[in-house]
């Protein structure tokens, strides 16, 4: 139980306000809500500021804000890979996503897999991409609830029943306004979420180092505490982890923009320039992310002891110990709304994919039936995530989320490289994708779901997704050369160069 009842009051007031705001979004904007573009992409009408809040709100999720400090708290320097990761990710936003936005607008795509269908004229490839994205997003949605659950469990005085029903109510509210308002619901709530996040982190930066005797002391105390962990961690990486750190950062950066929530938010921008500007201004959130990651060390320095299974409580407990009650309430509201925005956008993105690229490929239904499918699927995704969190142990969901990231990297040759070149043959890409998925999954199982793997040949430790990607690309390249040599055709490309300009 948290110390202060004022924390709960502040939290409850903010939460009610946010819910009202979510429903108020139904009055925002006009347009035909039965079209998937209106419901799922807010009519592609968001300007720079709305996009900044929305993208910031769903890329920097509550899970990241809880799990990242927990990672540093438990394992030390390796957890900081998220910082170069998000720095690199915006180069991809600037270069690749702007190009995707143009072709999506010119040809009316709502999802990444829509583009694959046209570009490669291959439905199997389209379905493969769509299912990979949905499979990667599902555990991610579920994990958003973990941060929420951490906060709600504390309020529920440790009673799982109270926390469970609070989680259910919170999720039902989000599901309802997302169903009614589509993407505009989470977009409006994102303003509040981000404001709460900034207040919390800036306050934390002022209050916490001062109370713990300054950064110098925090780092030395954290360094001492990390050495006692099993396996021991440290403030610096051991040299054999350099390659793992680099491939984790680069590999994760190359997948971030392909996730359904990134694509959905990016396509809702009203121009290419909006995305380009956001690649410049979104890194402001990365600074918050880095500072927040260091909160993991603050928790160590503050002497908060948690076993390896409960590290996600590091930040909530730290804030509860060092913040005045009302501010702790603001912080907890930030974590909870921070979970709801990305969960809603991820659910919309996954539902769009499933409705347009899986269901629609097997039925004759077209809009507006497609929109209705997407809306119902969005509810289904949220419900499934809730069930997942309440029934599956948290480490299992985390494993799946990490594996999902490695899977996402396997669609890079199709989705990202496909934006620039049609050199690869669809069959070769499909074979490469399958090899990549099997390879990363096998490595994950072999290491007990770690994101890094030591090559048997030379012991080089690297990111499993990266190794899968190398194999994937080798297979795709080799088979393309082979197919070319046998004289078979590359298939149909329904896009023309003018679509990309």
């Amino acid at each position, binding site marked *: 139980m948290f110390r202060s009842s004022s924390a709960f009051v502040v939290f409850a007031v903010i939460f009610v306000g946010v819910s009202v705001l979510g429903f108020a979004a139904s009055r925002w904007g006009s347009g035909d809500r039965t079209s998937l573009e209106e419901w799922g992409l807010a009519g592609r009408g968001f300007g720079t500021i709305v996009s900044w809040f929305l993208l910031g709100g769903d890329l920097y999720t509550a899970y990241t804000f809880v799990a990242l400090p927990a990672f540093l708290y438990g394992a030390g320097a390796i957890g900081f890979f998220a910082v170069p990761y998000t720095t690199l990710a915006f180069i991809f936003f600037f270069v690749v996503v702007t190009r995707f936005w143009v072709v999506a607008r010119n040809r009316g795509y709502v999802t990444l897999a829509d583009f694959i269908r046209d570009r490669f004229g291959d439905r199997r490839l389209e379905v493969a991409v769509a299912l990979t994205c949905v499979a990667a997003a599902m555990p991610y949605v579920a994990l958003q609830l973990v941060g929420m659950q951490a906060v709600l469990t504390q309020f529920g005085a440790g009673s799982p029943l109270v926390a469970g029903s609070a989680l259910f109510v919170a999720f039902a509210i989000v599901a309802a306004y997302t169903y009614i308002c589509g993407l505009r619901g989470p977009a409006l709530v994102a303003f509040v979420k981000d404001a709460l996040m900034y207040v919390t982190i800036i306050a934390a930066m002022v209050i916490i180092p001062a109370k713990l005797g300054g950064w110098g002391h925090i780092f030395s105390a954290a360094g001492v505490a990390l050495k006692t962990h099993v396996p021991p961690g440290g403030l610096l990486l051991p*040299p054999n982890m350099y*390659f793992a750190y680099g491939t984790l950062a680069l590999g994760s950066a190359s997948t971030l923009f392909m996730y359904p929530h990134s694509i959905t938010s990016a396509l809702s921008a009203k121009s290419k320039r909006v995305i380009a500007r956001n*690649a410049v201004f979104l890194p402001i959130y990365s600074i918050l992310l880095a500072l927040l990651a260091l909160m993991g060390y603050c928790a160590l320095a503050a002497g908060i002891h948690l076993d390896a299974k409960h590290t996600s409580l590091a930040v909530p407990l730290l804030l509860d110990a060092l913040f005045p009650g009302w501010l702790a309430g603001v912080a907890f509201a930030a974590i909870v709304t921070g979970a709801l925005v990305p969960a809603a956008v991820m659910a919309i993105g996954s539902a769009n994919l499933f409705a347009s690229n899986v269901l629609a490929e097997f039925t004759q239904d077209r809009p507006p039936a497609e929109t209705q499918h997407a809306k119902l699927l969005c509810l289904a995704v949220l419900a499934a995530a809730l069930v997942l969190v309440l029934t599956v142990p948290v480490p299992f969901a985390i494993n799946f989320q990490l594996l999902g990231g490695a899977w996402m990297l396997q669609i890079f040759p199709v989705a990202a490289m496909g934006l620039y070149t049609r050199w690869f043959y669809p069959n070769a890409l499909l074979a490469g994708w399958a090899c990549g998925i099997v390879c990363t999954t096998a490595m994950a199982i072999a290491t007990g779901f770690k994101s890094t793997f030591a090559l048997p040949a030379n012991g080089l430790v690297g990111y499993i997704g990266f190794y899968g990607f190398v194999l994937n690309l080798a297979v795709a390249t080799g088979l393309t050369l082979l197919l070319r040599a046998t004289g078979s055709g590359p298939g149909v490309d329904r896009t023309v160069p003018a679509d990309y300009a």
Partner: protein
Amino acid sequence: MPLYARLEPTLFGIPFFYWYQIAWIVLGSLLIGAVLLLTQGRRDV
């Protein structure tokens, strides 16, 4: 990597490994901004 995997020099008590990478967030953003400004005149970015 060996380039920045070190503790010294510290900044406000934060080891080099950490503040160096935080500095790159800002630098990266400035570089993208510069590219955006430079290409703006030439074509519709």
